[in-house]
């Protein structure tokens, strides 16, 4: 018996090769993950577009569900990040739904889970880090952001830099590891169950001896845990951590230093003026 644990299958290679590095490989374009990402995007885009065609003051059944979901996302963002950060709710919601659908789409067996590819979770985690940095610089200023690495004392600088790099890595690896590990575990157990069936029933000659009875039922329960439950929990954890990181970079305006607040208010006023024009 042979068990293979592989990354996403490569369907198509670009004719031109970009140089490989130790961290990044850059030569393959179309893999199973790419197809899955596309499938998730198309499905979600069609759902989002078609379900929101008839939004009325008196909601139908579908609209009630959509409103409940949207309200839940907004409430979650408000509870975790505060009322002043509600503008992040659409991104958090998108991330959450992408993650759940990306994990669940692996259950179809046609597509591979997008979140079982480190590239995807790493991309999402880097978006989080990017948002944290952008908002840090926007709210506290570039100098203050750089200076925050030397706090509380100068000796801590390397530690701070490591933690800054570690947070997206841990985000990405946590999500990837849970989904991919679940898949590996399911595969291993599936094979083990085949072996067990062989041991128990193998002595019976003919058709019955080859029946892998233990493979029925048990993997389904495991799949519910690893694909549905774990997919949901990991999506939730990923979004929650993203919210916490970004909220750290976006404190309520009252808690900002006086001079930064003045600058931000001025910027806001200018933006409003531009909009009015």
């Amino acid at each position: 018996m042979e068990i293979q644990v592989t990354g996403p299958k490569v369907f198509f290679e670009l004719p031109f090769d970009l140089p490989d590095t130790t961290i990044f490989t850059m030569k393959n374009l179309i893999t199973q993950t790419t197809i899955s990402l596309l499938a998730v995007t198309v499905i979600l885009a069609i759902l989002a577009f078609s379900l929101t065609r008839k939004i009325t003051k008196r909601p139908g059944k579908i609209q009630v569900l959509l409103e409940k979901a949207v309200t839940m996302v907004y409430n979650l963002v408000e509870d975790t990040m505060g009322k002043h950060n509600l503008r992040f709710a659409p991104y958090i919601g998108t991330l959450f739904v992408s993650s759940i659908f990306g994990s669940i789409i692996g259950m179809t067996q046609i597509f591979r889970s997008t979140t079982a590819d480190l590239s995807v979770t790493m991309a999402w985690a880097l978006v989080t880090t990017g948002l944290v940095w952008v908002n840090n610089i926007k709210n506290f200023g570039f100098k203050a952001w750089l200076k925050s690495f030397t706090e509380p004392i100068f000796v801590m600088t390397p530690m701070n830099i490591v933690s800054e790099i570690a947070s997206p890595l841990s985000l990405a690896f946590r999500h990837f590891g849970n989904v991919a590990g679940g898949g590996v575990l399911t595969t291993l157990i599936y094979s083990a169950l085949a072996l067990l069936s062989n041991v128990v029933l193998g002595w019976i000659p003919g058709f019955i001896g080859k029946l892998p009875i233990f493979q029925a039922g048990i993997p389904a329960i495991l799949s519910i845990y690893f694909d549905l439950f774990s997919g949901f929990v990991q999506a939730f954890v990923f979004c929650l951590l993203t919210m916490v990181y970004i909220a750290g970079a976006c404190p309520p305006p009252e808690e900002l230093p006086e001079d930064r607040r003045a600058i931000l208010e001025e910027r806001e006023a200018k933006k409003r003026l531009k909009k009015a024009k």
Partner: protein
Amino acid sequence: MGLLEATGNVIDKFESFVGVNLWTMIFAWVNLLILYLLFKKFLFVPIKNMIDSRQKEIDDMYENAENAQKNAKELQAQYEDKISKAEEESEQIVKSAVRRAQLKEEEILKEAGRQADRTLERAQEQIALEKKQAINDVKDQVAEVAIGIASAVIERDVSESEHKQLIDDFIGNMGN
């Protein structure tokens, strides 16, 4: 067969199990961006606006209802006030009317009394006058009769004017 060998064996057809491919990352970013824009435009913003506007409408409705109730209560109080005032007024009107009527009655009665008194007085005066006149007439007639009788008795023409005074005095004494 170990896991690592498994990944190593199929490196031509499969990506490594734990690895980052920049192309896939770019693809993930693009997909996330597209989904974010679509979700924002079609799902989050319209539904949030709808929820907010509905919430606002409900709040307005409740506020309006409360205001209407307050207004109604005020109006009710006003009307009750007005009604009680009107009742008071009507009572007063009735009272004053009654008083006026009583005054008028008294006046009328008094006037009637006065008139009756006057009429009586006049009647009495008339009576007295007429009585006097009648007495005078009677006196005259009696005088005439007496003179006639006397002249018949003495057969001679008694001068009427001469004796008139005499007879008048006599009758006057009788009448008294």
